[in-house]
């Protein structure tokens, strides 16, 4: 009942164009008034502050700053150049290079938008010049850009870890294999596309000297995931600290090593990054407030009862979770979606014997797909803008990518060993 009213009010406000943060807070207030609930608004608003405050979430703006530093600091181009000497000769080579670059970039950035922007700005023009349609080039970048939130470090996985009380270290480990699988699937689509359209049959293999040269250029950038992830996995620093290390390392690489960024560009870069982060964080905070009311009103308990009556097995539960998250992801960005649904889904996962780490990864994969599912989505917009293509045109070219990503999603969901293997190994 309550959940229905909340869903209805929230979607009505959000689809009417009320910015999400005010739509969420407005929904919370309206539900409290409408149902005559006795929670004082001061308390609700303190949970709004509380949703913004946790130290671990400081990693969100920091990873956004790091992503901005890397995309403006010339890291994108060098990663692309390196991937090109490795994979450029294959059929659909440029597409494969795009995916490989997104995978590598995902290892340094935890933001899908940053990934799509950094790689897309270099690769989309290159692919179009080669004869790929702008629609396909954009579709590929929109999809591959989201690898950044599956491959660690990942902002959504970090936030999920906080909300669900799951280990961020384990979540980051669980992202490695699925990220690579999604990437491999997309590469197959590229090879097929290159052959089918004949626009990119592949070229000559790069010489060893060329590979070496581009590796040397890209090395400072490629060292970054080793430092960040190595630091987290060995326990040298926490995920939040790793984000600060990423920022400082990104500053050094883009300003001192690549010299692509000047001091006077820094204020605007910091400003943009913290503005973006504030816009994200208030939505997270507002979602926390709404989630608090949902939890206090015992909605999760009712959802569990309902789910038990529909889903008999773990498999049905996972299927329903997938369908639900895919639908939700079409309309809502990953972070608020995770904050809102994790309190409902994590208790359910326990009931059905699903590891919360596995669940978090599956949820994030679904929401990543939502980032390029038309009509709205973060990477979809960026890529379409970079390619100067309409959303409709990009959407048509997304079809083969959807087939592959949904197949991989099914694998990651139902073969727990794929995401969890590394976690089990380390635990």
């Amino acid at each position, binding site marked *: 009942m309550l959940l229905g009213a909340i869903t209805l009010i929230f979607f009505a406000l959000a689809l009417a*164009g009320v910015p999400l943060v*005010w739509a969420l807070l407005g929904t919370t207030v309206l539900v409290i008034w409408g149902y005559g609930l006795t929670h004082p608004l001061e308390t609700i*608003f303190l949970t709004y502050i509380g949703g913004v405050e946790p130290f671990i979430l400081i990693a969100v703006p920091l990873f956004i700053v790091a992503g901005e530093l890397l995309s403006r600091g010339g890291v994108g181009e060098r990663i692309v150049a390196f991937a090109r000497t490795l994979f450029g000769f294959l059929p659909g080579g440029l597409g494969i290079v795009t995916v490989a670059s997104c995978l590598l970039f995902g290892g340094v950035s935890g933001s899908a938008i940053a990934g799509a922007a950094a790689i897309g700005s270099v690769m989309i023009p290159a692919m179009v010049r080669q004869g790929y349609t702008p629609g396909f080039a954009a579709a590929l970048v929109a999809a591959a850009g989201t690898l950044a939130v599956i491959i660690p470090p990942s902002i959504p996985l970090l936030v999920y870890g906080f909300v669900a009380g799951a280990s961020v270290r384990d979540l980051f480990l669980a992202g490695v294999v699925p990220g690579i699988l999604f990437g491999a699937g997309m590469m197959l689509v590229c090879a097929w596309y290159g052959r089918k359209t004949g626009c990119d049959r592949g070229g000559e293999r790069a010489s060893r000297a060329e590979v070496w040269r581009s590796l040397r250029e890209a090395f400072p950038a490629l060292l970054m995931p080793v430092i960040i992830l190595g630091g987290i996995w060995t326990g040298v620093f926490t995920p939040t600290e790793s984000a600060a290390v990423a920022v400082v390392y990104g500053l050094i690489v883009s300003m001192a090593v690549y010299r692509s960024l000047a001091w006077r560009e820094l204020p*605007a870069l910091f400003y943009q990054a913290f503005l973006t982060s*504030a816009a994200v*964080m208030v939505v997270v905070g507002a979602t926390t407030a709404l989630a608090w009311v949902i939890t206090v009103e015992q909605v999760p308990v009712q959802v569990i009862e309902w789910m038990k009556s529909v889903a008999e097995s773990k498999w049905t539960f996972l299927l329903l979770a997938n369908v639900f998250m895919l639908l939700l992801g079409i309309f809502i960005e990953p972070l608020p979606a995770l904050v809102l649904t994790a309190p409902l889904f994590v208790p359910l996962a326990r009931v059905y014997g699903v590891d919360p780490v596995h669940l978090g990864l599956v949820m994030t994969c679904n929401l990543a797909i939502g980032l390029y599912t038309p009509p709205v989505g973060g990477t979809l917009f960026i890529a379409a803008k970079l390619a100067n293509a309409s959303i409709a045109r990009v959407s048509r070219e997304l079809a083969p990518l959807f087939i592959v990503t949904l197949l991989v999603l099914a694998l990651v969901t139902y073969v727990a060993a794929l995401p969890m293997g590394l976690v089990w190994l380390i635990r």
Partner: protein
Amino acid sequence: MNLLPEAPAAPAPLRALGAAVDWAIVVLGAAIVAVVFVNVVLHQLDVDIAWTTEFGELVMVWTTFLGAAAAVRRGSHMAVREVLELLPRGARRAADAAIQLFVAGVLALLVAKGWIAVQASWGNVLTVLDWPMAVQYLALPVGSAIALVFVLWELAGCFSARSR
């Protein structure tokens, strides 16, 4: 030379307020990076400074709520505008005014109730820093009040001929 992105046109006092908020975000943001990084370094040297976590959280809260106000001014809050774009011009203007009015209502509540929370928390102190909790909670009514000023300006624009 403009170090920060160009802001939408507005009367001088509003521009000054906006610029002050913008620079506060840059400075506080840089402070967050510095504090967390220093914490990493000290951590390696086995020095534990407990205040960095609390201080980081405090600065984060302020940066976020000031950032939310700046995002109102620059129209960069996350929103689904696709449905709105389908409306004819006149209807869209009316809808925009209705949205701003709704947002103003939410912000007014945040200011009023946030202020109550602040007043109730002067007595409680942060565990390590020993500063009143109110210093942290104050970010909500202050940030929301500034956001409210920007929203009211937008709202006034919806009713006048001022083009956006």
